[in-house]
C-alpha cells in the first residue's frame, strides 16, 4: 500500500486529465461551438469545479465492489487503448511514417510495463518529470501571440442552444480521468487538507491550462480553416519561425509523447492497482498480458477511420464512468448504510 501527499495526488490527476487530450480536442470543440467556444469552456470549467467539489464531499461513500471495479478496469483499458492508438496514428503521420507501428507502440508500452512492475512510489513520482516541460510548452505557445486575432472571440450567439450543448459535450474530453479522484482520494495522507483552497488551486490550474489552449487556437486559426486541422497546437507551432530550431512542432511533439507516455503509465497503474485491491491479484502475468493487449489493439486501431470512431465514442463512455456510475455507487452505498 502507498500514501500520497496532496501535491502528488493533484499532479497525478493533472497528468491523467491533460495527457494525450490537450493537443487535439480544440478543433472539434471550437468547430461545434463556433466563436462561443471560450464562453462554453468557462461554463464547462465551472461544471468541472462542481464535480470536483462533489467528489470531495462524497468520496468516502464511493466504495466500488468487485463488479464496478471490473467495469472501471475495462473502461481504463479502453481509454488507454484509445490514447495509444491516437499517439500511434499521430506519430506515424508526423514523425515516423516508415517505422513499423508496433515498434513505436512497443517502445511506449514497454516503458509502462517496466514502470508498472516496480514499486508504486516509482510511478507516483513519475508526473514530476512533466513539470519542467509545462513552462517550455507555454513559452512555445506564447510565441504565436503577435499573430492572434482578438476579433475571433466574437460574434457570440448564445441563443442557439444546440451548438452550445454540442460544445459542452465535446468539452468533456478535458474531463476524462476525473473519476480517478474518487479512487485515489483515500490514499492522501490524513493530515493533508484537500477540500477548500487546494481543490480550488487545482481547478484553476486545470482551467487555465485548457482555457489558454482553447483561446490560442480560437484566435490563431479562422474557424472555417479549423476543420482541416486535426492537431491545432502542433500546427500552430509549425507556423512559427524561430532561429534556434528548424521545427518547433517537432520539439513540442516529443514533449507531448513523454507527457502521453506518462499518462498511459498512470492509467495502467490504476488498472493494475485496482485489480490488486479488489481481486488480490499480484501476478505479473496479468501485467504482461495487459501490455500485450495494449500493443496489439493500439496498432490495430491506428488508422484515420478507427481513431475517429474511438475518439467519438470515448466521450460517451467517459460520461457514464465519471458521472453516472459514481452517482449510482454513492447512492447505493447510502442505501446500504441506511
Amino acid at each position, binding site marked *: 500500500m502507498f500514501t500520497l501527499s496532496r501535491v502528488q495526488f493533484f499532479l497525478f490527476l493533472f497528468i491523467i486529465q491533460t495527457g494525450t487530450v490537450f493537443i487535439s480536442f480544440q478543433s472539434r470543440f471550437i468547430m461545434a461551438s463556433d466563436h462561443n467556444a471560450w464562453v462554453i469552456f468557462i461554463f464547462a470549467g465551472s461544471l468541472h469545479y462542481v464535480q470536483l467539489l462533489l467528489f470531495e464531499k462524497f468520496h468516502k461513500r464511493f466504495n466500488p465492489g468487485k463488479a464496478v471495479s471490473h467495469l472501471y478496469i475495462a473502461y481504463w483499458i479502453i481509454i488507454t487503448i484509445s490514447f495509444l492508438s491516437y499517439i500511434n496514428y499521430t506519430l506515424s503521420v508526423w514523425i515516423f511514417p*516508415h*517505422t513499423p507501428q508496433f515498434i513505436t507502440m512497443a517502445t511506449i508500452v*514497454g516503458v509502462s510495463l517496466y514502470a508498472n512492475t516496480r514499486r508504486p512510489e516509482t510511478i507516483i513520482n513519475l508526473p514530476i518529470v512533466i513539470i519542467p516541460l509545462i513552462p517550455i510548452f507555454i513559452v512555445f505557445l506564447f510565441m504565436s501571440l503577435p*499573430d492572434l*486575432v482578438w*476579433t*475571433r472571440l*466574437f460574434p457570440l450567439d448564445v441563443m442557439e442552444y444546440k451548438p452550445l450543448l454540442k460544445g459542452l459535450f465535446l468539452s468533456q474530453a478535458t474531463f476524462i480521468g476525473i473519476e480517478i479522484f474518487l479512487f485515489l482520494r483515500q490514499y492522501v495522507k490524513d493530515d493533508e487538507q484537500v477540500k477548500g483552497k487546494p481543490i480550488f488551486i487545482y481547478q484553476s490550474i486545470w482551467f487555465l491550462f485548457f482555457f489558454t489552449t482553447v483561446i490560442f487556437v480560437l484566435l490563431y486559426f479562422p474557424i472555417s480553416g479549423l476543420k482541416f486541422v486535426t492537431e491545432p497546437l502542433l500546427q500552430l507551432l509549425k507556423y512559427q519561425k524561430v532561429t534556434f530550431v*528548424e521545427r518547433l512542432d517537432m520539439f513540442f511533439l516529443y514533449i507531448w509523447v513523454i507527457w502521453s507516455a506518462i499518462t498511459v503509465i498512470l492509467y495502467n497503474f490504476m488498472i493494475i492497482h485496482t485489480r490488486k485491491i479488489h481481486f488480490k491479484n499480484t501476478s505479473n502475468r496479468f501485467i504482461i498480458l495487459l501490455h500485450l493487449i495494449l500493443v496489439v489493439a493500439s496498432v490495430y486501431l491506428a488508422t484515420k477511420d478507427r481513431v475517429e470512431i474511438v475518439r467519438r465514442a470515448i466521450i460517451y463512455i467517459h460520461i457514464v464512468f465519471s458521472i453516472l456510475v459514481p452517482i449510482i455507487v454513492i447512492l447505493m452505498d447510502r442505501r446500504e448504510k441506511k
Partner: protein
Amino acid sequence: MKKGLLIIIMMLLLGGCWDEAQYKDVTIVPVMGIEKDGEEIKTIFSFPTFENGMINYSTSEGKGFSTWNARYDANQRTMEALNLAHLEVLLVSDNLAKKDIYEPLDMFFRTPKNRITSYIAIIEGDMEQYFNLPEDVNTDVADFYPELLHTAVLYTFVAENTLGETAKILREESMDLSLPYMTLNEKGIPTVEGIALFSNYKFTGKTLRKEESIAANIMKDNLGKHTYLTYKWRQKESPITIEIISVHRKIKITHDKIDLNYVIDIGVDEFPKNGLYKNDMRRETENFLSDEMKRDFNKVIQKTQEAKSDIFGFGRRVHAFHSELWERGDWQETYATFPIEVDVKVRMKRTNILD
C-alpha cells in the same frame, strides 16, 4: 534472460532508424516555382550541385496534373530526391494564381516535413526567366530571392507573407490575401514591384505599386524595421523623405460607412529646403504630409475596392460586431462599394540631427 531483454530494449531504441533521412540521398531545394502550362502544372526547382569543390545551382523542371505530380516528374531528372524541408521561397506565376491558388499549394501543408514558414511571392510572366538570373545579379537564385524578399519585408515594401499565413488567410472569409508581386525590369532582373491583390481564393490581376504597397502596410499598422516615404513638395520645390516611427489607428464601423483615423508619428530623413527649426514650418510640413498620406491612403482603398479585396481585414470586425452588415452577402462584394472615409494626422516627432 537479462541479456535477451537488453537486446530487445536496444532493438526498440533503433525505432527511429526506419525514418532516418540522410542528406546524401536528397537534394535540398531552397527556391521553387509553380506555374500553369496549358492544363498542366509546371514546377521548377533550384538545387545545389557540387563541382570541383564549388557549389553551383542547377534547375530541374517537371510537369504534371498536380504540384506533387509535377514534382515527381522533376525528381526523375535529378540524381537525388528533391527535398522541400528547407524551402526558402516559393514563386507562383500570376496565371496560376488567377485560378484557385489553394489547390496547387495543398501538398505543402499536408506533408509535415515541408517547411511552411517559407516566403511566397507572385511573379509576372514566364517562370523560367526568374530562374535564369542575368549576370548583373552576381548571385545565385538560392541567395537572391530570400534576400530580396527579406529586404522587402524589412523596408515595409511587403508584409512577411509565409506559406502558412497564406493558407490561414485563404481560409478566412473576412479578409483577403495580398502577396509580394515580382516583375522583371528592363535588364531582366527580378524586382519586388508591389503587392498582388486577391479576392477570395484568386489573384484579381490587380496590384498595388511599391509606394502604394508601403501605404497599405502603414494602413494595416504592419511596419517592417524601416518605413520610408518620399514626397515631392512642389510648393517648396523640395523633396522630403520621412521615416514612420509609429502608427495609431482607430477604426469605426457603422452600418453605412467605415471611418479610418490615423495618427502617424514620423521623423524627417531628408529635407534639403531646411527650416524645420521654425515652429510654423514644422506645422506646415505636418499638414502637407497629412494631406499627401491621406491622398495615398484613399488611392489604396479605391484600388482594393476595385479589386474586391479586403486586405485590411475590416471584414473581421464586421463579422465580429456588425452581423447585419455581414449578412448582406459576400463580404468582398459589400466591401467593393462600402463608403470608407480616411483621415490622417501626421505628427513630426524628430527632425534628426539637422533642423
